[in-house]
């Protein structure tokens, strides 16, 4: 073979090897490198789905969305014209810190990448900075979804608040919803319970990004996904009533819950003191939350479902119901009240030191005589009394659509044995239970629910906040005579001239109710009023009002209830 042929052959061989290397990369491993090229240059951008708006029962928005903004600066675009003073003034970031951040950014390889300056600035600050855009080259704003509360009604404990996913290991409710770092999620209240409805689905967009991080527009080959906005929620809350009650509670501690007796819909839900959801932009700042958490007034506690109180005299209705139902005493049976009752070596007092004289059951209720019930309970079966408390849904959670509800305490025999030992308690304890003192603990929602049951003669529904939601039916079967008695005696409490609940009376409508004065070791008695309003023979509103350390139930709580009933009489129609 001639020499030049040999050289050409070697040449051809080397070129073939090279060609096959290219062939290997471009044909055989093409898909692998295509993916890698995509990973290099295509960025997946998440588009926030707007969160569902929350309306009250009349379609008035009480939780809406607003955009807040994160301010960032692209160091490369910052010129000597940049007005550090202005940014500093608007954001509170010191201008030396700004200068340092930008100078460092300019020197780094990623000088086209935005450097965050300040998170969660509001629309006003943004507008102000935007107006001076010419002296602020390189500033950019990114949007961040936040909530706003347009209505006067705060509804703090019902609505709850949002938090940001800081790290994926933290306890995030609704793990199934695929959160990413930086997403917001409902941390408490309605925002949390109905997270899956409110949240919607974030969209995605694919954008081309070069090595410096500069955006080169939408990636044509993959259109991404449109965000699906969260669905709106309609609450059963009447925001006007709500704000009325919130005003009534200003400066007070306590809770008030109003419901529609027939449906269990919650019309108003107040727990005082509360905190202002509008007082911060974006997720709750940790310092603020710490402040609330360490506040001795405990604004974070939702007193409506988490506050445990002795029910006081409102609890007397149970013993009365049982006595009527089991026909333990006939209707002429009376007790002579002289203000004090002695059992063994212990004196039990009536609230009226002078005594009520001779009282029958009806009188004992509307005058709230303790002595009558001290004697009555001794005729009743303890077990049946416990059962009656169960029928009126004490000792179990009401099932309202909020988290963290407490069950209260109905002190059964086994509980007492556990707590005091078999011989450590006696009839004397029962005497305190029957008037709603001692170990008995209830939540305001339970007391309100008892009124639902009485008002509807045992045909109500589970308390709930979401309008038109299929709530569970509650049926309590008692004899018609028992219902008649309960409704009559609660009517007398308000309407009889000697009734303890006179202050709650509304002219033109039928108000029923029961006052309560709960002694407690922390100071002044708690003031209770529970009742319902009947308009055109239909119970349209039930309520439980508790004012912590408000004194006698016949005063504070009854006066607040009166104002609520007046509103309801005028404004609520079923």
């Amino acid at each position, binding site marked *: 073979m*001639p*020499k*030049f042929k040999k*050289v*050409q052959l070697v*040449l*051809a061989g*080397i*070129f073939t090897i*090279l*060609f096959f*290397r*290219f*062939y290997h*990369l*471009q*044909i055989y*491993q*093409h898909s*692998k*490198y*295509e993916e*890698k*090229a*995509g990973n*290099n*240059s*295509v960025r997946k951008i998440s588009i926030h789905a707007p969160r569902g708006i929350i309306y009250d029962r009349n379609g008035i928005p009480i939780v809406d969305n607003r955009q807040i903004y994160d301010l960032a600066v692209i160091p490369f675009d910052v010129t000597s014209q940049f007005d550090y003073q202005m940014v500093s003034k608007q954001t509170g970031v010191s201008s030396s810190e700004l200068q340092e951040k930008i100078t460092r950014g300019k020197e780094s390889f990623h000088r086209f990448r935005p450097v965050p300056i300040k998170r969660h600035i509001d629309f006003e600050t943004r507008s102000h900075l935007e107006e001076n855009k010419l002296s602020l080259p390189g500033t950019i704003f990114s949007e961040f979804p936040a909530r706003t509360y347009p209505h006067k009604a705060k509804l703090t404990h019902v609505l709850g608040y949002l938090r940001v996913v800081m790290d994926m290991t933290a306890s995030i409710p609704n793990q199934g919803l695929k959160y990413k770092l930086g997403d917001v999620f409902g941390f408490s209240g309605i925002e949390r319970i109905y997270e899956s409805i409110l949240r919607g689905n974030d969209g995605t967009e694919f954008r*081309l*990004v*070069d*090595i*410096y991080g500069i955006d*080169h527009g939408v990636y044509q080959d993959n259109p991404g996904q449109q965000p699906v906005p969260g669905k709106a929620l309609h609450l059963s809350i009447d925001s006007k009533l709500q704000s009325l009650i919130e005003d009534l509670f200003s400066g007070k501690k306590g809770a008030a819950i109003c419901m529609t007796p027939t449906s269990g819909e919650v019309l108003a839900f107040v727990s005082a003191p509360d905190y202002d959801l509008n007082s911060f932009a974006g997720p709750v700042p940790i310092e603020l939350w710490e402040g609330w958490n360490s506040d001795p007034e405990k604004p974070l506690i939702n007193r409506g479902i988490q506050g445990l109180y002795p029910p006081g005299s409102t609890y007397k209705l149970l013993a009365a119901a049982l006595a009527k139902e089991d026909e333990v005493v006939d209707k002429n049976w009376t007790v002579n009240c002289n203000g004090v009752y002695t059992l063994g070596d212990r004196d039990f007092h009536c609230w009226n030191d002078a005594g009520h004289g001779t009282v029958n059951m009806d009188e004992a209720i509307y005058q709230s005589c303790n002595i009558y019930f001290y004697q009555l309970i001794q005729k009743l079966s303890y077990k049946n009394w416990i059962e009656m408390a169960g029928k009126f849904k004490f000792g179990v959670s009401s099932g309202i659509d909020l988290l963290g509800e407490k069950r209260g305490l109905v002190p059964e025999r086994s509980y007492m044995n556990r707590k005091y030992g078999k011989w450590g308690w006696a009839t004397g304890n029962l005497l305190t239970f029957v008037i709603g003192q001692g170990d008995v603990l209830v939540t305001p929602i339970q007391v309100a629910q008892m009124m639902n049951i009485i008002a509807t003669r045992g045909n109500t529904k589970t308390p709930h906040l979401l309008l038109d939601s299929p709530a569970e039916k509650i049926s309590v079967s008692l004899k018609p005579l028992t219902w008649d008695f309960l409704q009559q005696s609660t009517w007398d409490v308000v309407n009889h001239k000697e009734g303890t609940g006179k202050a709650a009376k509304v002219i033109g409508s039928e108000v029923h109710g029961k006052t309560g004065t709960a002694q407690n070791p922390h100071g002044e008695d708690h003031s209770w009023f529970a009742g319902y309003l009947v308009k055109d023979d239909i119970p349209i509103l039930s309520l439980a009002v508790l004012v912590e350390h408000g004194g006698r139930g016949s005063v504070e709580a009854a006066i607040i209830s009166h104002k609520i009933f007046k509103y309801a009489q005028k404004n609520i129609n079923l």
Partner: protein
Amino acid sequence: MLRKTLIYNNTLNKIFQVPDKIVFRWGIFFPVLILMFISLITLKHTSINSSFFSSTFTKQIIWFGFGSLVFILAQWIRIQYFQEYAFHFYGILIIFIAITYIMPVIGGSQRWVIVGPFSFQPSEVGKLLLVFVIARVLADQKGNMNEIKLLLLILLMALVPALMVFKQPDFGTAIVYGFIALPMLYWSGIRSYYLFSVIAPIISIISAFNIYIFSIWMGVLVMVIYFNQPKITMGVPQFITNIGCGILSPFIWNNFLYSHQKERILTLLNPMRDPHGAGYQVIQSIIAIGSGGIWGKGIGKGTQTQLRYLPVRDTDFIVSVIGEEMGLLGIAVILGVFFTMLYWMIVYAGIISNKFSSLTLIGFASILFIHLIVNMGMTVGLLPVTGLPAPFLSYGGSFLLSCMLILALSTNIVNHHI
């Protein structure tokens, strides 16, 4: 008039002559047009953001214009002039490379001779001068010199400037200097076994870093030595030398190589070693080429290129751009036309009976070949990143000019003899 001046002026007619004929040798010249065309449309889209006059596209067109002028003018050069003065030129080359050592450091190396506003890189034109001097020495032999002595002499002549530019440091050009002697030696008729003996220690050094490859290589070495049956006094020392090289290479590695050179060699062995360091360029290049597929992403549409993930895309890695945007098709065209060009240069070298001219053609072909192979091998991770550009593809004025000059002188030689 010009003709008369050239014929009768004693000084000028040493350098210039009136060509017998000016014929474009299309086998050599047509590939250049295709490569320039591919290069220019690629540069057009990589320089889309720069203004017309400052873009590499425009500049490269201007350089190509210059190159064409040089191509024409070079036809008047009397090629024997380089044969006659080959040793002078070689001496001048060595002096100029030595001068670079006292020149300022630019970009970490001293490759340029700077005089006032002008600067040039002696090692660039030195590639041609080295070809001339080797061709001259080999052509002068009439079988009167011991083959081994001749081989060692040629290698010494190549290695002196090679080591000098390696010290600048310019690894790429050193490889070119070291390489071009080998095909020329083969062409001059040196026994293949001697050439093998020269290359063997280099392979020993490289393979010493992997004990298994080194063992296999030692086996091959023993077989080759055995079947060529040299004298025992030659075969045994040769074997020992190779083992010695294998043992010494770690020593050389630790004491003679610059850290960036070590880095490049290590990166060659494993590009994924440090994705954001030296391996970064190669990884991005491989991704660009691999993602191009068979038809490419379309000119100006390569994401790796246009979004700047690919570094030095106008010069060292322009082949990666072509691989991404024109796919395997574009690569096949490049390899095809380059093969055609080299094929015809070898054919002409085979036809021409003048030994100097024939060897010069082979030397020129070697220069183009080694640039292309090292550059393309680098883009696909087969060879280390040495900074050698691809002939007629990479942007760069002086390199394009010297490539054009190589082809011009080749055409000159071919026209003169055939």
